[in-house]
């Protein structure tokens, strides 16, 4: 059995397809491409696929991850080409890496995620957006109330916003030319923020929660339709192998690596 990790994007109209349907899409695409995928046993066998982190309807992404178990594999590049030939141009495979037999599933390794949050055209912009966002971030604490089924809990977002920036260049510390191609849609109004947030099974912060808190700080309410959220990368933390939420968990510094480079 070969374990492989598939990184793919999701853009354009595909953003309206929910997570369960994306799973179904892959099951069928794998069959169309004639990939030698492994099936579970029993009367209704299913392909052995698992996804790192379901993406909500309406969001786009440059970095979705799916782990797949294969009976055989010609080469990752060959599989990528075969799959892309039978997939939508708005959902294409970017990279396939093979994993060590003992590697953890992508979902369990998840530690952080990068997002781009852009204001869509036609909605009111926040005056002095960058300055105000900085003020917002510079607060001592960013308290939000999280509603669960049973109770409301207060939490401080501050330590979970790992970093933010207004350009991709400053976010990643490298020039646009050397960065990977992105499918993120650009808007004329230009108001946007890049966020790196904690994510995973211990603590999971969504960019919507940050934007909601930011707009609340401005005394306004968050309109979910006004912002396009685009996921840029998903990371594992090599210093938190059990998925502890750094920096509060294992006490070491974070060392984030994209999921495609983790578990080889």
């Amino acid at each position, binding site marked *: 059995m070969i374990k492989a990790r598939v990184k793919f994007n999701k853009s354009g109209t595909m953003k*309206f397809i929910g997570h369960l349907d994306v799973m179904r899409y892959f099951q069928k695409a794998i069959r*169309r491409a*004639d990939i030698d995928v492994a099936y579970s046993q029993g009367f209704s066998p299913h392909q052995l696929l698992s996804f790192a982190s379901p993406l909500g309807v309406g969001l786009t992404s440059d970095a979705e991850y799916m782990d797949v178990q294969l009976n055989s594999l010609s080469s990752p590049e060959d599989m990528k080409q075969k799959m892309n030939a039978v997939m*939508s141009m708005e959902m294409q495979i970017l990279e396939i890496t093979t994993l060590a037999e003992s590697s953890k599933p992508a979902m369990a390794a998840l530690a952080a995620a990068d997002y781009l949050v852009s204001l869509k055209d036609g909605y009111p912009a926040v005056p002095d957006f960058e300055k105000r966002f900085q003020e917002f971030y510079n607060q001592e604490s960013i308290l939000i109330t999280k509603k669960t089924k049973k109770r409301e809990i207060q939490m401080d977002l501050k330590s979970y916003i790992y970093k933010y920036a207004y350009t991709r260049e400053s976010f990643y510390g490298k020039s646009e030319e050397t960065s990977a191609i992105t499918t993120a849609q650009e808007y004329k109004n230009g108001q946007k923020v890049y966020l790196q947030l904690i994510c995973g099974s211990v603590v999971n912060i969504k960019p919507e929660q940050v934007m909601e808190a930011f707009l609340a700080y401005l005394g306004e309410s968050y309109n979910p339709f006004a912002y396009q959220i685009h996921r840029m990368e998903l990371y594992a933390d090599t210093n938190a192998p059990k998925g502890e939420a750094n920096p509060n968990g294992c006490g070491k510094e974070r060392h984030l690596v994209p999921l495609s480079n983790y578990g080889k």
Partner: protein
Amino acid sequence: MKKLALSDEILLKIEKPARYIGNEVNCVVKNPESVDIRFAMCFPDVYEIGMSHLGIQILYDMFNRRDDVYCERVYSPWIDLDKIMREQKIPLFALESQDPVRDFDFLGITLQYEMCYTNILQILDLAEIPIYAKERGEDAPIVIGGGPCAYNPEPIADFFDIFYIGEGETVYDELLDAYKENKKQGAGRLSFLERAAQIEGLYVPQFYETSYHEDGTIASFQLINSHAPSLIKKQAEMNLSDTVYPQKPLVPLIKVTQDRVVLEIQRGCIRGCRFCQAGMIYRPIRERSLDFLKERAYEMLKATGHEEISLSSLSSSDYSHLQELVYFLIDEFGTKGVNISLPSLRIDAFALEVMSKVQDVRKSSLTFAPEAGSQRLRDVINKGLTEEIILKGAMEAFQGGWNRVKLYFMLGLPTETEEDIEGIAVLSDKIAREYYTIPKDQRNGKVQIVSSTSFFVPKPFTPFQWTRMATGEEFLEKQRFLNGKMREQLNAKSIKYNWHEAEVTTLEGIFARGDRKLCQVIYDAYKDGCIYDAWSEYFDYGKWLKHLEANGIDYRFYTSRERKKEEILPWDFIDAGVTKDFLWQEYEQAKQGAVTPNCRQKCAGCGAMTFGGGVCFEPRRKEGAND
């Protein structure tokens, strides 16, 4: 990014936005500027239902094979989007190009069931096309209807420019060529409709006029345009192994009702059940060749990636090469995780063997459709299934490990008595008793019997087209009676009884044998908010009663009235192959409880032989063979 007719905000506010964005796998992309004809093909129900329909996939593929045509799809916007489109005045659009339907040359609407009639008006209304054909100007699309309900198109005649009577594979090319020719000559809408009326199988309702007797029956049905024929001949594709069939069916991006490859193995049925419209209008039975089916099964699974393939036909067991086909599918695809689904299979040793190979015995159930509870009534409806066959099949299945049985019956069949109804409960119980004759240590737990009844609706082009349909009150009385009898059975606890709504059945009965007087009622009900009548949560019977009454119509005229042989029926202008004399003779036979042998046993002389093919020309098998 692809242009969308709806904004992000609308798409994110409504349920299942994927219904409206197109872009499905194998979706056809053409440049609308480079074709002569733009055709919008519509299934007037929600996307998940419409996308499951094989007929549309066949026509979509067939039209798009032509370089001069771009065929796109349209489905009914769901209630949530319907409201937004009206508020924001967004015209209905086709999925592929997202362009307004009103700018197309044709709007084709498939008519699969009567309860979609108000959805047709919704489609026209949202598309900003005048609802009444006579009000359409030169720039409005030609609205054409087809499918089983086109065999009595009169209740919706005013809303269509053309009806296509019969199977779509035959004369669409001729129609599209005529359209191009007409356009080239700069001739208008009327001229085109006159050309269309001269093509066999096409009915242009505005060229005919109906007059009525005082009692509401038809006095005359007359031509008012000399280009139109007085009889419209049903179209049938006679070579089903050398015709269009999609090689790359569309694969929706969301889960739909029929999420699988559908392989139509044959068209028509030899059985001649007297209540069944499909069994009459699709005569004669025509099979597709084994090679054709093997090839298509392979291609379609490959092109779609579906994990299931389903055989489609009215009675799969009658397909001559069924065993070979099924074993081919199991051997070829069974190991690749492909499920094989075999609906409409008669339960016998072969079926049980195959079923035990393709499904989990513990989870699956056996299905029988005796339709009536007593042998007498089964003979009336010409349903060849006997109690002996059912009990034998059930017993073999029980021994094979099955313990769930589904039974389908109808209430309100002609000549039905209380004894016949009680027979439904008795038969359900007998099957359970059969199960408990197996020693306890060899049984697989308790037996579960699910018996369902629907109400019988007489349909045009069946021997029961003249018969009186039961009233809503009678239906409910029958249901209560049966429910009581079910409870009296020894194994009552093992039997679950499901029933159908009576009110929606009455409306179906009104439309099924209705005439043009109903167009106004449908229009009024739609304007009053009736839509998605096939969905019980939206069906509003009160409104329908109100508008029937307001139009001076006593609906029992359509439902609870025995017609005379001489009466002009609204669909008499259609020649479906099966003759009126044959149907009447079958009706007489029914009343006497006399069985008519199936097409392979003995030709009953129904009239379908005029199509020049199919079972009518097969060498006759020996008496009793294949049965």
